[in-house]
Each structure stands twice: as C-alpha cells, then as structure tokens.
C-alpha cells in the first residue's frame, strides 16, 4: 500500500501563524485558509478588519490550488493568455493568492489568502508554506 504525507493541525497552525506574521509585518489585513488535498477546510483565520468576502475568497483560492495542484496564478495566466474556455473549469478561482502545499513531491493541500493585492496575497501564503519545512 502506498502511504503519503498529510497535514496535521499542528502543521496548519505553524503555516497560518507564519503567513499571518508576514501580513502583519506589512500592515496587511487578510484572511488565510488552509485546506487538505481534497479541498476540505482545515484551518482559517480572518484578521480584524478583513471582510467575510475575504474569508470566502481565501478558501476558494486555497481550494483551487489544492484540488488542481497548482498555483492559482497559473490559472490566471492561462486565461489572460487567451484560454477563456478555462473559466468553464468546475469551481475554480483563477486569481493569484493560492498555492499548493507540496511535501516530498506530493500535493498535500492548498493555502489561500485574500485582502490585499493578489501578488501580496501570494507573498503571504508563500511565507506560510516556508514555515512547513
């Protein structure tokens, strides 16, 4: 039987804290969501001042990254390049700010942020992933 790594609550807390620290360092107010590889919510924070929409968007970005095993920026770039039909992919959020969490070559989940500019959202989640290793 094949075995593969999976995220624990402890992993999520470490990632989320690091991502939140990155946001706070820049005075950014965001929501940060972490999901498993099936797109199921494991951890979410909505910082004071972030909107309910930010929370939903953070989940949607993280879910897209987890389920498609690629950065949401990849989807955004594909569509920007003219592949408009990609908008028809089932339940994807093709907006930068969601990254897959890859451990030992396996996608174990996704992390998404929403609240500031999209590339800043990605900077936040990247800092979260860095805390995992």
């Amino acid at each position: 039987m094949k075995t593969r790594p999976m995220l624990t609550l402890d992993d999520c807390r470490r990632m989320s804290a690091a991502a939140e620290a990155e946001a706070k360092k820049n005075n950014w107010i965001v929501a940060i969501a972490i999901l498993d590889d099936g797109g199921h919510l494991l951890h979410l924070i909505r910082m004071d001042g972030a909107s309910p929409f930010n929370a939903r968007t953070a989940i949607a970005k993280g879910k897209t990254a987890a389920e498609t095993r690629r950065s949401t920026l990849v989807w955004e770039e594909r569509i920007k390049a003219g592949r408009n039909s990609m908008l028809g992919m089932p339940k994807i959020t093709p907006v930068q700010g969601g990254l897959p969490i890859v451990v030992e070559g396996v996608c174990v989940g996704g992390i998404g942020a929403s609240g500031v500019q999209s590339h800043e959202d990605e900077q936040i989640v990247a800092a979260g992933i860095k805390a995992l290793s």
Partner: protein
Amino acid sequence: MAFKPMFRGAAAASFAMFALGAVAQVPADPNNPNEALPEKAVYLQYGEPIKLDQAMKAANAALADATKRGWPMCIAVVSPSGDLVYFIKMDDCQYASIAIAQHKAKAAATFRRATVNFERLLGRGPFFSYLATLDGVIASRGGNPIVVNGKIIGAIGVSGGTGSQDDVVSLSGVAAIK
C-alpha cells in the same frame, strides 16, 4: 383510450383542492403553544463583533478540552452575522463536521441562541416541526452564542462527537471569553 378520461379526472380533482385552499382556513388548535401572543420581545443585543484573538482564545480553550478528552472535532468561531472568523479541524475529525461546526456556529449567532434549543423543541413534537423549515436552522446541540456584558459578539460551533460531547466542548470555548 382508457387512461385519457382518468387523467382529466385527476387534473380536475387537484384543481378543486387548490381552489378550496384559497378560501379554507386551518383552524387554530387550542393545544398549540405557538398560538399564544407574547407581549414582549426577548432578545440579546448586538455587541462589537468578536476579534480574532478572542476567537482564537475561545477555540483554543475548546480545543484543549477536546484534546484532553480525546475527542477529534472541528471548531468554528463566527461573528454575530454568522461569518467565519476562525476555524480549526483536529486531526482525525470526520469530514462532515467541517460544515456542521460552521453551520452550528452560524445558527447560534444569527438566531442569537444555543442550537440545543432547536434540538429540544423539535423533540417535543409536531407543534415545533415548523422550526425545521426556518432558514439556516440546525437542530443539533453544539452551537452557542458568545456573550460579553449581556451582548452577543459572536458564536462558537463544535462538531465531531455526539451532540452532548460537542456541546460540552463548545461551552468550554464560551467560558474562555468574559
């Protein structure tokens, strides 16, 4: 053909029922407690929405309790409007509880009462079955408002164990916020 007149007859009968429904009233049942008209509205006032650090404090107190008892659970903390502020899924908690914990928190916040009330009233019988038709109800204990100085600032929802286990853990979270 034989079925054609039968079909016509059925259509005519159902039309007659609708037509009657417009004029016929269902009489009040004197045993129905919902027929009573209370003088006053009893409700919790809204306070300043819960902050992330308070939400984490409540959830972490619930988490500590669940961990101590060995119950894998999901814990959600929401604002008074029912929007998610903080969420954690413990290792080995069932997938269904991800949504249920959020639903319980949202119901406790938006209805400004513990979800055990819905569960108990529905259990009382047919006069309370209407509760299940109200938008956003979840008739399962484990969702509780977080109240500070008599005002609701949010709610916490827990799922993963039996209803009674969920509620104990949920109330541990509530107790952490003064």
